[in-house]
């Protein structure tokens, strides 16, 4: 197999390298790629959509249809991971570790033993590969997480003016949650943001995007043509495009956040939603 791989690689690579000489030089401003279509976006992007960041206006408006499917890809991945991995587990199937909070004693309950109540104030469930009290990590994360989340919201809201947008913001939001799940434990993260909520948020986020498009359709314009929302938002058509971009970016942020958290739940617990990283 390695030999076969080598042959394939050498052949393909040779063909590609052989041809590189015909490319325009790196950084050539006069190549067809840089002169045919893209000047339109640069010259008219701000006038058309009122968003100085041209990448955002291309992403969410000129090629907004692509972006809708990009969000759908993420959603599909979330569904796929859930579909492939998730399995229900009865409590008591596997040994479990508990910590008795007042004394700090660690208990190991064997298979079939009686378990303390799920929301017991005295006993706290531990992962089987537990570590002693991690005060530094927990407290640092407790301080850092709100800042990550505020920054994420800034990234979502400020996508028009600076790099970033719904997708990056959504990933950051998800990352803050994953940090919570790693620093505390998966079960508490799931209690805060249950699987069902993640799944519903995921489809809701895509629904916000596609729904905006359908709303445009109902107003008589083409799918995703935010100009049609001008009467609804009470602004000029250009501003309606700008606001439309914001709305769909929020949808993207919702979907991406929820779905990445959902994928993390399934991957980190191998579908059992029991013990994470």
């Amino acid at each position, binding site marked *: 197999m390695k030999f076969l791989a080598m042959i394939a690689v050498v052949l393909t690579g040779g063909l590609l390298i052989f041809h590189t000489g015909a490319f325009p030089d790196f*950084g050539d401003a006069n190549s067809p790629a840089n002169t045919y279509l893209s000047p339109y976006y640069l010259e008219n992007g701000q006038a058309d959509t009122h968003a100085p*960041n041209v*990448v*955002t206006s291309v*992403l969410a408006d000129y090629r907004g249809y692509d972006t809708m499917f990009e969000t759908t890809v993420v959603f599909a991945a979330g569904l796929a991971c859930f579909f492939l991995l998730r399995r229900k587990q009865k409590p008591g199937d596997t040994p479990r570790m508990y910590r008795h909070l007042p004394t700090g004693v660690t208990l190991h309950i064997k298979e079939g033993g009686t378990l303390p109540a799920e929301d017991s104030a005295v006993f706290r469930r531990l992962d089987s590969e537990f570590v002693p009290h991690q005060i530094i990590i927990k407290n640092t994360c407790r301080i850092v997480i709100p800042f990550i989340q505020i920054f994420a919201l800034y990234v979502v809201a400020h996508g028009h003016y600076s*790099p*970033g*947008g719904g*997708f*990056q913001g959504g*990933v*950051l939001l*998800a*990352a803050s949650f*994953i940090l919570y799940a*790693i620093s505390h434990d998966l079960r508490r993260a799931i209690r805060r943001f249950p699987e069902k909520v993640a799944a519903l948020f995921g489809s809701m986020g895509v629904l916000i995007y596609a729904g905006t498009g359908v709303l445009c359709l109902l107003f008589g314009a083409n799918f995703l043509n935010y100009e049609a929302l001008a009467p609804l938002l009470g602004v000029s058509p250009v501003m309606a495009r700008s606001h439309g971009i914001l709305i769909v970016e929020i949808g993207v942020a919702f979907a991406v956040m929820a779905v*990445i958290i959902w*994928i*993390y739940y399934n*991957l*980190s*617990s*191998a579908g059992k939603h029991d013990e*994470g*990283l």
Partner: protein
Amino acid sequence: MTLPIDLAILTLVVISGIGALAVKDLLGASIVFSAYSFLMCLAWASMGAVDVAFTEAAVGAGVSTVFCVAAVFHTTRRTKD
């Protein structure tokens, strides 16, 4: 853009890519792969693709690594190649 920096970063990208595939420990490979993504993100930032670099920093160096580590955690670290 200062050209030498760009060349240096791209060379490092290749080295870390080879490293990620050569390390005989899957957890190590995931982490080297994270470094690969991060260097790639630097390369893109130096080429002016800030949005792409931002996304790669959040996704490639962040979330993908977590996914990889989670998967390795639930499978095995050992590998023959």
